[in-house]
């Protein structure tokens, strides 16, 4: 069994208004050094697979078909044996 951890964020080219609002909040708290705040989603799931290649293929498929909408979102993921 494999543990997949997926991060979905708005594509870099798209203005992340939530991230901007949070960044402003952090600046208001005096944390001026903070920049480029992006808000996303973290999704975890376990995958039954014979090996890591298959686990990655299944996770990739899940991301492309449902977990992210690639018109506006990018995704990255890690897969580890558990």
């Amino acid at each position, binding site marked *: 069994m494999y543990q997949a951890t997926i991060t979905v964020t708005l594509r870099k080219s*798209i203005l992340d*208004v*939530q991230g901007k609002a949070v960044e402003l909040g952090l600046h208001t708290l005096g944390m001026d050094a903070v920049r480029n705040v992006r808000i996303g989603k973290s999704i975890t799931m376990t995958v039954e697979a014979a090996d890591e290649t298959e686990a990655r293929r299944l996770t990739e498929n899940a991301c492309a078909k449902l977990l992210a*909408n690639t*018109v506006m979102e990018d995704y990255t993921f890690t897969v580890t044996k558990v």
Partner: protein
Amino acid sequence: MSSVRFGIVVFPGSNCDHDAYHAVKHVLGHPAEFLWHKETDLKGSDVIILPGGFSYGDYLRTGAIARFSPVMNEVVRFARQGGVVMGICNGFQILCEAGLLPGVLMRNTSLRFACRHLTVRTENPRTRFTAGLRDGEVLNIPIAHGDGNYFADDETVKRLEGEGRVLFRYCAPDGTVDAASNPNGSVGGIAGIINETGTVMGMMPHPERACEERLGSADGVKIFASLIGSFAEHTV
């Protein structure tokens, strides 16, 4: 005029299904039926309406889960065979997620839920959804959404614009399209679009909530009447 049968899909979380039913059945006088999301029979509908609401709680993304409802398989098949489908608000979001319309509806740039009457300008009166409108006609229709910020890549937007597939744009009451009239940050102020074949339409504003003067506007009737009229022309 012969009657046009409307099928109104009800997802868990739909909340404008009864508004749509009331508008087409009681205001326009055409037969309408609810289609529960688990159904796989569209009951001979001529038009499928995907109504507004928060299907499946907007989990993951608006419309993302609804498109896997059993009824949606049939709606997609119906649309691919040339069936007429109208998506309003959440219905528009579902049509984009299902790939029946291009693009996506993102969070409003204001990060606020926008719920008010506003004005949209008719950009193309040469479709079955807009045939009863004048070019540039301004309609008073309410919006009620948190995710209505239409986005597609530059190439897609250029194609929509070039092919006259932008049906409505947010505008000032005099018809001027400007940033101040855009309630959600949509690219080009786009409020509604149509597919290549002119049979699948999605719009964020709610025409079904603007079908009687006592509700503040009856401009929505013009859209439903255009659609109903298009069937008469096609069956002659």
